């Protein structure tokens, strides 16, 4: 059996998918819903989504939670990636991106982000692949 593509997903991908239901990011969520790939995000991404939806778009707690629950994502807790945080922080200019990189290092998975430049350093790309939605969709099409 061919192993499924597994990627660590950045928050901007979820916002883009919600914004444009026919765009590449939404296509990725649809493919994950059908079991064509595995999407994983750290708990920080879940918290970011929740706070942003509530504070900036006035979602109620229930609305924010139910929206997040619909995302075809495996959420991983801090305890899972904590051991890789320091290494991730040392590699990144924007330290606040560390939970995403730490999760990728821990799970040996690529990173799917709309903000590639934050991770686009040779020291990082030799450890993990940084992918765009378009690139992921091309990989999925090849495996269909």
């Amino acid at each position, binding site marked *: 059996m061919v192993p499924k593509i597994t990627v660590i997903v950045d928050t901007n991908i979820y*916002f883009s998918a*919600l914004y444009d*239901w026919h765009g590449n990011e939404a296509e990725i*969520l649809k493919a994950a819903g059908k079991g064509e790939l595995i999407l994983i995000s750290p708990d920080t991404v879940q918290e970011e989504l929740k*706070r*942003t939806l509530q504070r900036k*778009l006035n979602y109620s707690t229930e609305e924010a939670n139910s*929206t997040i629950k*619909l995302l075809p994502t495996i959420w991983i807790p*801090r305890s899972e990636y904590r051991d890789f945080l320091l290494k991730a922080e040392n590699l990144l200019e924007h330290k606040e991106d560390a939970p995403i990189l730490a999760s990728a290092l821990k799970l040996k998975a690529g990173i799917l982000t709309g903000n590639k430049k934050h991770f686009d350093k040779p020291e990082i790309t030799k450890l993990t692949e940084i992918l765009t939605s378009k690139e992921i969709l091309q990989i999925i099409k090849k495996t269909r």
Partner: protein
Amino acid sequence: MVSTITVSEEVRRKLMGMKLELGYRSVEELLKAMIADFEEKQLEKASESFRKKLKERNLTLEGIMRENEKIRREIYKEWFQK
């Protein structure tokens, strides 16, 4: 782990008919696809709601992304820099 559900004869007949017509190997596969379709529709509704709320507040996707970057820094400080 597996478990059983009880359905009426009519529902069973319809499910078997759908399985054959749509080419699924098992009813389990058919039901999984139906669940995936349902969840996709729910997510589409969430997407409509998201766009509506953006419009109501006169916000753009880029604006939301910028706000999220601030919130990311805030969470990082709270959770990891104590």
